[in-house]
């Protein structure tokens, strides 16, 4: 809607008629001239009349438009949006404030960090509201937190609420917060409605909008509202951040007394820089690796881990300090293990070769300790703490035993099954964790018994570091073999015997793995126990199983952390815990179907959490911030309208710009300057066109090569 501060000048629009009047006057003053070559003139006019008419029309339009625009500009027009125009000065407004509460808001920017800037900007917006206006407040984190869920006329309360908030330790999602704000403003009636988002300009919180492109109802709900959105991007225009995002032990199992390495992946955003990545164990730096961080790339650094005694250690990986210090440290708990315990289920004769292969020297220190139990004695307690469980011709098992084994796998254990003559294919039906079930067991023809074992999946962690004795050929004699039924969707064949018979299946189940061999652990079905591969494969399974299924080095902060997923079984029901700040934290008991678990729901601080026993304490688990938030790549202000699909979206880069845009929105925008610019463009176009039409072209006399004697030469010869 237009309003004019100086409407008298609108009469000046009549000046737009001047070009037309001049044209008509000129028509009346036309002279008559006798001319000799009218024939040629007519010919040329016929050819050029369309062009001349178009040029004249265009010139007339330009001149008329120029005069109109000048008249409008002097009338001092002000443009008001439809909403503002309708209710200008007559309506109260409801304002929803959405604060980005992700930890990237702690980015240090000058004297204050971005969060403090956002608080100040939000407070300024509220200060600018009048009596009768209302405010609601939402924090955009991983989940939306309604601080003032409904619009409140108590502006002081809103100011206090904003000042009382702190930046969170998680990531953020703007879209759910906007939807919550829209819901809160839905019942505003005829009030003007504004949503103000204060964020650091990071692209990550806006990704939801891109993913929701096809979710038409939600998108329409957001874009179709008659609400004005103000987004203030308060972060640095080109933010820089370096943060460790991922660690990996190499090899996966940290063994006591043995050196190992920690592979650290460091994400860097910003121009290239150099620095050092360091590893601290129990607060003391034990290793440091220099690194060059490329622009917007992930860099890998390897940190040596010195030999450690058995136990648990609080560790930290640190990157060089930067403007966002919150994510510079990654907390870990290292647990070097002295001995590995494996459980073998089966009779002494069935497990004979396996026991000898895993622990030939019986109780030698540092070796794998194998404990054999009879198939009828399988309980959850027997399996607890085992790095790996082998079943040697142990099927059929009781239902309780199968459930205990499947729970063991689900909780991160590795179960390796060797078939045998005790079980028929039907005896495997009750198992749900198997990669494939036998359909039949058949004798192998004498001609086909000699089989070469082939590795099908070379990148499997089970065989990544497998080394066969030099000079050995991976050949086994197979007298009986399993004919497999349809494999489970997650099943992966690891080894094959002969052309295409699967010799070893693998399947991920819960946090653990199930392996199923195609032959027995003794010599009844073949010569596998006597082959040179038998010992290295079994050792590899135990070592990898112990590393894979154990407690994680660290976990990401979130709600609902189950204690048994974080710590060794002996600590799974420990109830006295202290946070990184020394405060006590207590897990909650949760009952899920037939199981009870202890879990933490309110942990917010990153760091190492300790299991306390009186004055003693031991590292329990390490919590870290969501590392996706470390990617501080900024969103382009010009892209936000396209990403969000919001029609009435104003993007400001700082508080002053925001206030100016609010002013323009609420009181209208003067258009004089824009119109004067338009007039300048029109005048330039008019000058160019008029010059083009009236330009002097060379006279034919000047172009024609003619001698004084009248001889005219052709242009080519001239």
């Amino acid at each position, binding site marked *: 809607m237009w309003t004019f501060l100086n409407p008298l000048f609108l009469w000046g629009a009549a000046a737009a008629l001047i070009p037309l009047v001049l044209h008509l006057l000129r028509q009346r003053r*036309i*002279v008559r001239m006798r001319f*000799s070559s009218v024939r040629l003139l007519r010919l040329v006019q016929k050819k050029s009349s369309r062009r001349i008419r178009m040029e004249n029309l265009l010139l007339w339009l330009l001149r008329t438009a120029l005069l109109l625009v000048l008249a409008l500009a002097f009338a001092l027009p002000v443009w008001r949006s439809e909403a503002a125009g309708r209710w200008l000065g007559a309506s109260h407004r409801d304002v929803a404030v959405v604060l980005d509460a992700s930890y990237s808001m702690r980015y240090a920017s000058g004297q204050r960090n971005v969060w403090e800037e956002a608080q100040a900007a939000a407070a300024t917006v509220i200060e600018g509201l009048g009596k009768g206006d209302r405010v609601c407040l939402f924090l955009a984190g991983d989940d939306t937190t309604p601080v003032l869920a409904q619009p409140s006329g108590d502006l002081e309360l809103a100011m206090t609420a904003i000042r009382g908030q702190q930046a969170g330790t998680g990531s953020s999602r703007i879209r759910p917060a906007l939807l919550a704000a829209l819901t809160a403003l839905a019942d505003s009636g005829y009030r003007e409605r504004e949503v103000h988002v204060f964020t650091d300009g990071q692209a990550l919180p806006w990704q939801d909008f891109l993913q929701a492109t096809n979710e038409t109802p939600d998108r329409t709900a957001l874009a179709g509202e008659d609400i004005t959105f103000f987004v203030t991007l308060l972060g640095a225009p080109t933010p820089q951040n370096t943060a460790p995002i991922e660690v990996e032990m190499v090899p996966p199992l940290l063994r006591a007394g043995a050196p190992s390495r920690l592979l650290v992946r460091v994400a860097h955003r910003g121009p290239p820089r150099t620095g050092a990545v360091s590893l601290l164990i129990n607060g003391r730096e034990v290793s440091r690796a220099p690194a060059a961080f490329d622009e917007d790339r992930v860099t890998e650094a390897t940190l040596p881990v010195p030999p450690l005694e058995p136990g648990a250690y609080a560790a930290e990986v640190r990157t060089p300090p930067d403007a966002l210090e919150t994510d510079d440290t990654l907390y870990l708990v290292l647990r070097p293990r002295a001995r590995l315990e494996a459980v073998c289920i089966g009779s002494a004769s069935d497990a004979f070769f396996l026991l000898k292969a895993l622990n030939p020297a019986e109780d030698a220190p540092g070796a794998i300790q194998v404990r054999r139990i009879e198939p009828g004695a399988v309980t959850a307690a027997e399996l607890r703490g085992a790095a790996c469980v082998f079943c040697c011709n142990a099927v059929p098992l009781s239902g309780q035993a199968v459930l205990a084994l499947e729970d063991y796998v689900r909780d991160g254990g590795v179960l390796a099954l060797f078939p045998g003559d005790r079980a028929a294919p039907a005896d495997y039906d009750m198992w749900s964790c198997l990669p494939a079930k036998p359909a039949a067991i058949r004798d192998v023809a004498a001609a086909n018994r000699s089989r070469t074992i082939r590795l099908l999946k070379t990148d499997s962690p089970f065989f990544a570091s497998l080394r066969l004795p030099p000079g050995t050929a991976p050949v086994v004699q197979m007298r009986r073999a399993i004919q497999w039924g349809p494999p489970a969707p997650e099943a992966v064949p690891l080894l094959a015997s002969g052309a295409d018979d699967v010799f070893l299946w693998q399947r991920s189940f819960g946090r653990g793995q199930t392996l199923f061999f195609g032959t027995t652990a003794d010599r009844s079905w073949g010569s596998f126990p006597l082959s040179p591969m038998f010992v290295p494969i079994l050792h590899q399974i135990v070592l990898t199983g112990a590393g894979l299924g154990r407690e994680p080095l660290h976990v990401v902060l979130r709600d609902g952390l189950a204690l048994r997923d974080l710590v060794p079984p002996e600590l799974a029901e420990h109830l006295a815990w202290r946070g990184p700040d020394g405060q006590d934290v207590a897990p909650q008991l949760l009952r899920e179907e037939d199981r009870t678990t202890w879990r933490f729901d309110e942990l917010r601080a990153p760091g190492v959490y300790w299991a306390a026993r009186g004055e003693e304490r031991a590292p329990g688990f390490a919590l870290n911030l969501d590392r996706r938030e470390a990617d501080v790549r900024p969103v382009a202000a010009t892209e936000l309208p396209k990403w969000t699909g919001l029609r009435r979206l104003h993007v400001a880069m700082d508080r002053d710009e925001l206030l100016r845009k609010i002013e323009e929105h609420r009181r209208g925008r003067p258009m004089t300057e824009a119109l004067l610019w338009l007039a300048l463009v029109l005048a330039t176009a008019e000058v160019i066109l008029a010059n083009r039409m009236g330009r002097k*072209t060379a006279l034919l006399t000047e172009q024609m090569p003619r001698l004084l*004697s009248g*001889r005219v030469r052709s242009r080519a010869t001239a």
Partner: protein
Amino acid sequence: MAEGIAHFLNPQELQRFGRMALESRYVVEGSLSGRHRSPARGASTEFADHRAYMPGDDPKRLDWKVLGRTDRYYIRRYQDETNLRVYLAVDRSASMAYTSGTLSKYDYACRLAAAIGYVVVKARDSVGLYLYSSQIDAQTGAKNSFSHLNNTLRLLQRYTPGSTTDTASTLHRIADSVHRRALIVLFSDLLDDPPAIIKALAHFRKEHHDVILFHILDPAEIDLPFKQAAEFEDMETGEKILADPRALAEEYRKAFAAFLEEYRKPCVEMNIDYRLARTDEPVDLFARAYLEERRRLSR
């Protein structure tokens, strides 16, 4: 008021033109002995060829040297030299009255014709006149006396431009009426149908006439320099068009250049001496430059 040649040329100009001559580039058939080559063989010093002796031939024309060497009778033949007959054909159509300055195209043509005629008669050659528009309005035979030239120029002086034109057919008639080889000098603005006029010119060449074409134009016709929109009225047909000359100038010049080229190119191909004469140039300067160049090229 002066009449005849004195009307068109002042004494200084006459003096300058007195030392000049108009050469024909081809053999011409004249009645008097003169400086121009004749198709007839006759008495002169320039050897032409031999022919066998026929009874009745004058024995003094026998080539005795050939007879002595070959015992055969041959007659020596010599190039005959004769006088030049020049016909001035002046266009008096209405368009020739156009002027953007002081001198109309017709006036310019008359002055140029007077200069050419004077040079011709001064060289003891004959000059005649065809004054035409849509028809032959006046004509005089070719004679080599100053009184004849004076009468001819009076005729030109008496007529004014002011009729429609049909140049092509008139030129055909002129070509038919000139029986012996001559030099035809044409003065016209040629604002007519170019292909037809070219055919008429070809007719002259077919009759073995030497042709000089003075294409007389006003500078305003060539450049269309007018600034103001105007209603242009054709001087011959009365057709009127409203036009903005500034907007049309560029296209007009292109069209006019093509129009000139329509005449220039065929003339070069037919060996017609095509000259563009502008009315803003002094007649005597132009005529002397032309005659000098023609004399140089005829050698």
